[in-house]
Each structure stands twice: as structure tokens, then as C-alpha cells.
């Protein structure tokens, strides 16, 4: 009887061993980077992401129907409030346009090259990762010009970078992921540093020239030094400056972009470098 039980158990151990060996081999191959396992991800992403997109569109449609046709209570008051806000914003835009025109004139005089973030591509977020690492899936891929290491941003701040692209979808690693690092500079003092993801909601300061003048509320911008993110984009705000641990103070930074509520993002598919270096041939004498 016991022999029969032992015989019937054998295939289970064989199956378990085979499965474990396959997974360990996959992990090992990635660790030593001997074989690119990206094709497996691309295949699964191309197979499953359309389903995620379909589900996202269905949920989006249902929410639109609910918002547009069912929940209309208080729309009139909201309309009036928005009109007032619109008027105020128009005034602000006019003032901003004046300021930009003035800045352009000064830039032209000084011979600065124009600044900008490059060619943006709007993508819709269709899913978050199913394994609780900090990544999102967007509905644009290689055919739209996306490839690994393309910066993903929102007007509020930096979101992350593309780490995997299939034909029509891409996986974006958020800046809060524990494997992420962003080259930054402090807005006030222009000191350069590196912010690293923690896997939680915040970022940690990993390096800075001098941490003596850091204080809560200071804003970090991208430095452009990592050659991924365009220079001058908001990254995050210092929320706490703790005691020194090793060479650096423990500094926590809250991302400027609301990474928990991303709907649409911008991918910078053609970077335009922001070079604040004076070209001597362009400088003209200012009377």
C-alpha cells in the first residue's frame, strides 16, 4: 500500500522540481543578464494589455454615463463657479503671456537657446501592476515611438520612465519604485543630487553636494543629468529633514505628481535639451 502511495507521489515532485527549476533559471538569467527575457514580457503584455484596455474603456464609459446623465445635481452652481474661475484664469494667462514674451526677449538678447521638454505624446493609463511593484501600464507602445528610458511626465511633475515596450503598450516604472533614481537639483540653491524611490509613497535623497541648507517645503527639479528626464520638471517637495545618517541627512520627498491618481500622462519621445549656455556668436551688444 505504501509503495502505491509513494509511486503516486512521484509525478508531483517531478512537476514541482521542473516548475521551480524553470523559475530559478529565469531569475538567474536576469541576474547575470545572459539572456534577454524581455520577449516573454512583450508577449504577455501584448496578450493581456488589450483586455485591460477593454476593461478600462468599459469602466470609463460607465463612469462617463453616470457623471453626464445621472449625477447632474448641482451642475448649475458648478457651472457658475467654473465660469468665474475661467475668467480669473484668462486674466492670469494674459499676464503669463506678457511674462513669457519678456523672458523670450531677454533670452534672445543673451543668446540662450530655447527651452522646452521636447515632443510629447499623450498616453492613457490602463492598469497598475498586479504584483505591487510601482509600475503602470499605458496604451502606447513601439509603434507610437516609445522605447525604454523615455521620460513620462504630467504637468504637475515627473511620473517615471518606460522600462518595457510592446507594439501597442508600455510598462512605466514610477519614480517611487525602489529601483528608480532621478537626477535632481534644488530649485532654490541649484545644488544637484539624486532622489531614489523607496517602494512606498515617498522618495529618499540619495546624494547631494551639500545638505546643510535643506528645509521642508523646498522643491526638487530634474537636473537633466540622468539623460532621461527633461531639465527643469518638478519632481517633489521635501516633507521632512531628519538627523544625519552616515554622510547625509535623512530627507523625505513627496512626489509633485499625484502618482496614485494618474489618468493621462505625457511621454517625451523626442527630448529637446535645455541648454543655458551662452553662445558667443549670438550675443549682441545691448544698448
Amino acid at each position, binding site marked *: 500500500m505504501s509503495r502505491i502511495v509513494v509511486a503516486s507521489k512521484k509525478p508531483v515532485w517531478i512537476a514541482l522540481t521542473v*516548475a521551480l527549476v524553470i523559475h530559478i533559471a529565469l531569475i538567474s538569467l536576469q541576474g547575470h543578464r545572459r539572456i534577454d527575457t524581455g520577449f516573454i514580457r512583450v508577449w504577455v503584455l501584448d496578450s493581456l494589455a488589450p483586455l485591460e484596455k477593454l476593461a478600462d474603456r468599459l469602466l470609463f464609459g460607465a463612469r462617463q454615463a453616470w457623471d453626464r446623465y445621472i449625477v447632474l445635481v448641482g451642475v448649475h452652481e458648478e457651472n457658475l463657479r467654473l465660469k468665474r474661475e475661467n475668467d480669473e484664469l484668462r486674466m492670469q494667462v494674459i499676464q503669463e503671456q506678457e511674462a513669457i514674451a519678456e523672458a523670450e526677449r531677454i533670452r534672445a538678447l543673451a543668446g540662450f537657446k530655447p527651452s522646452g521638454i521636447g515632443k510629447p505624446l499623450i498616453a492613457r493609463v490602463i492598469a497598475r501592476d498586479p504584483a505591487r*511593484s510601482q509600475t503602470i501600464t499605458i496604451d502606447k507602445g513601439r509603434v507610437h515611438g516609445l522605447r525604454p528610458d523615455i521620460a513620462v511626465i504630467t504637468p504637475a511633475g515627473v511620473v517615471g520612465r518606460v522600462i518595457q515596450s510592446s507594439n501597442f503598450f508600455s510598462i512605466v516604472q514610477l519614480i517611487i519604485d525602489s*529601483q528608480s533614481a532621478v537626477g535632481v537639483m534644488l530649485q532654490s540653491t541649484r545644488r544637484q543630487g539624486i532622489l531614489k524611490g*523607496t517602494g512606498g509613497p515617498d522618495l529618499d535623497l540619495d546624494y547631494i553636494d551639500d545638505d546643510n541648507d535643506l528645509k521642508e517645503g523646498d522643491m526638487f527639479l530634474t537636473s537633466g543629468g540622468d539623460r532621461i528626464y527633461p531639465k527643469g520638471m518638478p519632481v517633489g517637495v521635501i516633507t521632512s529633514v531628519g538627523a544625519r545618517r552616515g554622510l547625509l541627512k535623512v530627507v523625505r520627498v513627496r512626489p509633485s505628481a499625484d502618482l496614485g491618481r494618474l489618468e493621462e500622462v505625457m511621454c517625451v519621445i523626442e527630448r529637446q535639451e535645455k541648454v543655458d549656455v551662452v553662445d558667443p556668436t549670438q550675443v549682441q551688444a545691448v544698448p
Partner: protein
Amino acid sequence: MNRITTLGLFGRFATALIGVVVIQGILSFKFKVFGYFDLPLICCVYYGFTLSNPIASIVIGSSLGLMQDSLSGGILGANGLSKTLIAFLAASAGQKFAVDQLITRVFALFLFSLGDDILVTILALVVGPTSNPTYSGAMGSWLLSATFNTLFGLVLFGYHDRWRDATT
């Protein structure tokens, strides 16, 4: 006829597994709280307990884990390895213990969830960069996740019991 039945069963399982991973991705994106749930893990334990078939459970665990890894951008194989072990242990437990007991299910779901998080983190430490791989609130997040998974798993098992009682 028998082959058609087998194919139909296989198709149903495949659809269910793909559905679980897709639903996890969508819900985590739409509702922040679902980031703490691990539906594929609950699915592994559920099939392990209810099928009590270790080979089928190993296949299910491996497939779910690999799909999770592929869509997450994390280490390919980390969740696969973890889910394979958990599915196997759940199926073995289903054969040996009375997994119909509430207390057994609570313990099993909680420990499997915690074990999954710890194993995946260790694998990330082994393969990925050694600096700063986890954040200080990781343990709290794991405990919260284990609690959510336990509660959701109990609800799922409750439905399974009612369905089984109704059909027998």
C-alpha cells in the same frame, strides 16, 4: 467527447486565471485599496484547497505568478516561484488537513500572504540592486496586505461552501 470536455475545462481555467490577473491590474489602478490585495495569491490558495490536486495547483501557481511578473516589470520568475510553492503547499495542506475549518483558513491565508511578500522581496534583494530595495513601511504594508487577503479569501471560500452545499 472526453477530449472536448478536457479542452473546455482547460479553457475555463485559463480564462479564470487571465481574468484574475487582468482584474487585479484594473482594480489596483482604479481603487488604491486594491493595491493591498493579491487576487492571484488568493486564487492559488483557493484552487489549492478546493482542487487538492498538487500538479494542477503547481501549473496554476506558475502561470499566475509568471503573468504577474510579466505585467509588473519586476523580476521575471519571482512571483512565479513564490506562487508555485504556495499553490503546492496549499494543495498538500488540502489533502492532509481539514481546510474547511475557519481557523485553518485564516492561518493559511495570512501565513501564505506574508510568506509570498517576504519571498518575493528576498528574491528582489538577491537579483536587483542591493541598495534601498524596500521602504521602512514594508512590514506594515505586508501585514495589511495579509489581513486584506485573509478577509477576501474567507469571503471567497464562504461562497464556495454555499455553492457546494447547494449543488450537493
